[in-house]
């Protein structure tokens, strides 16, 4: 008679199965109907990724090496960081990981660009309205905590296996800091300066471009940096759904217990992460040059 206390009351097995089947069925139907057009919509991005990969892999390596190191120097203006990057890339190439590394760099670059292009406007919207913030915030929480394998299921159902689902998975995982930090940066802008902008008759676009974005820039740059780091962290997961790059040898190493191979590719990911991180941080700092010299 106390049976209902012993075990949590639950749906019958049959009902549960039915519910799952009908939801799965509905989604499959949706995929069948719209899958192709959704996939087509992502074609330009895919083309761009393939194009970038092609350039990085098929150009003579000394040119690519010079360009990459050149970019690092242009951003950081720091000899130490530049030499470090040069050495790291040379070691990576010498250990036979050049092509995989180029694929990963292409992937991370495109994903970061996507995250910035989508994330900054969303962050701005969020900063403008408390209501939008209260809607987007839980979605971001969901994106950051939901195990990535779960949202890979529908993505793979629509796109199959390959670059596009990989990119979507990476962007979903990497975009939240971009959005959050843009929002935070704009909300933290000094109210006095905003009031001054108002007093001189700025419209909201002028306020955004003259005051809010420039003053939020350090925070936004921190968001870019975080996004790059998180995109790199997803490389192995993306490899699971067929994205080539440094992730695949890692998966291979796990499956076959190749310790050295795993460690080498893992370290290559770390090396790229450090290069990206130092270069973007130094760049962000350089943009804030004006705030360093304080009147004594």
């Amino acid at each position: 008679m106390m049976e209902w206390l012993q075990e949590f009351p639950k749906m019958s097995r049959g009902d549960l199965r039915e519910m799952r089947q009908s939801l799965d069925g509905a989604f499959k139907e949706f995929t069948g109907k719209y899958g192709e057009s959704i996939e087509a919509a992502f074609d330009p991005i895919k083309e761009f990724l393939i194009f970038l990969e092609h350039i990085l892999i098929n150009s003579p390596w000394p040119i690519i090496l010079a360009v990459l190191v050149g970019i690092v120097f242009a951003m950081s203006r720091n000899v130490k960081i530049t030499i470090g990057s040069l050495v790291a890339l040379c070691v990576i190439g010498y250990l036979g990981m050049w092509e995989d590394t180029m694929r990963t760099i292409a992937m991370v670059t495109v994903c970061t660009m996507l995250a910035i292009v989508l994330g900054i406007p969303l962050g701005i919207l969020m900063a403008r309205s408390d209501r939008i913030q209260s809607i987007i915030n839980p979605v971001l929480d969901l994106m950051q905590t939901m195990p990535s394998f779960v949202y890979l299921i529908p993505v793979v159902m629509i796109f199959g296996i390959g670059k596009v689902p990989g990119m979507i998975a990476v962007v979903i995982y990497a975009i939240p800091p971009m959005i959050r930090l843009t929002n935070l940066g704009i909300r933290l802008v000094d109210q006095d300066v905003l009031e001054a902008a108002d007093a001189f008759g700025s419209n909201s676009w002028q306020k955004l471009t003259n005051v809010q974005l420039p003053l939020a820039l350090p925070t936004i740059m921190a968001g870019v940096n975080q996004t790059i780091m998180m995109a790199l962290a997803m490389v192995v997961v993306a490899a699971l759904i067929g994205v080539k790059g440094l992730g695949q040898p890692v998966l291979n190493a796990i499956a076959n217990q190749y310790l050295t191979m795993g460690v080498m590719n893992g370290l290559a990911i770390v090396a790229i992460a450090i290069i990206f991180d130092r270069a973007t941080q130094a760049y962000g700092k350089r943009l804030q040059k004006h705030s360093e010299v304080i009147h004594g």
Partner: protein
Amino acid sequence: MAEATGIEIKSLYKIFGPNGKDMVKLVQDGMSKAELNEKHNHVLGLNDINISMPGGKIEVVMGLSGSGKSTLIRHINRLIDPTAGEVLYGNDDVCKMSQTELREFRRHKTAMVFQKFALLPHRTVMKNTVYGLEIQGVPMKEAEERAARWIARVGLEGFEDHYPNQLSGGMQQRVGLARALTNDADILLMDEAFSALDPLIRMDMQTVLLDLQEELHKTIVFITHDLDEALRLGDKIAILRDGAVIQQGTGQEIVLNPADEYIADFVKEVNRGRVILVDTVMDKSKTLEGGLTVSSGIMLEEAAKTFAETGQGEISVVNGEGKPLGVLNVQDTISAMVTPASH
């Protein structure tokens, strides 16, 4: 430049809270700030403000913190929306302007200087100074030419490419002033503009402002909590307390006839020699032929200097054309400077 237009503030109320409009009636019927806060949880910001700010003059609004002076100045360019009342600039009611009209009004008719400077930290002195013109859409070349003139005028020549962080507080506020002047607006709103500066720099900036006003004749609204500053700058002074005007008039009127104990307390420590005019103290029934003269409209302190330097006991006060208006003697001058004249 044509004479600047004045500002008329009429029956202005500001009540902070969700139902401010409904509370105006209660305040008009005599409910106090404390009572309103306690019973209805609304804050009385401004209570029936009527001030006529003459064009081309400096109107000082003085009060201690919480008196509503910063709220008041923000009604003139409507950075804060009023609950009831009118702010008239010529025939236009600022409170009735649409968003677009208001933006145009702010761009072309007003300029503001802030207590905390509120400069754009990522812009150089020059780029900060052209801000108002940039917003108006003035071509950058012309804007920079106009800005350069004001940068030089406030004494910052050679600092055009510095960032605000590289400047001292006084210099930063000079940038704030140059930014406001470059706008070439009729109305200059100064919200405790010099309060964050140390005393010597503050005196310095007051002098800069007075010199500028001598040639510009803008309608300046100056907010301060410092009575000495108010007396030095103000052609007219309004004293605010708990959101209401408790006295307005010239500095001399306020010092000589404080409206209540509160103001009397305030003016007790004032250097009267710098507030009271010789015209107020002189004996108008007499005139002196020849001898020493001082001009009408100067302060007692200056007359006292003349007495001290010459050792005379009597001076003739004359107007601009040299016509004698009355006689000032040492005795009266000294007593007017040290004792409350009336009460």
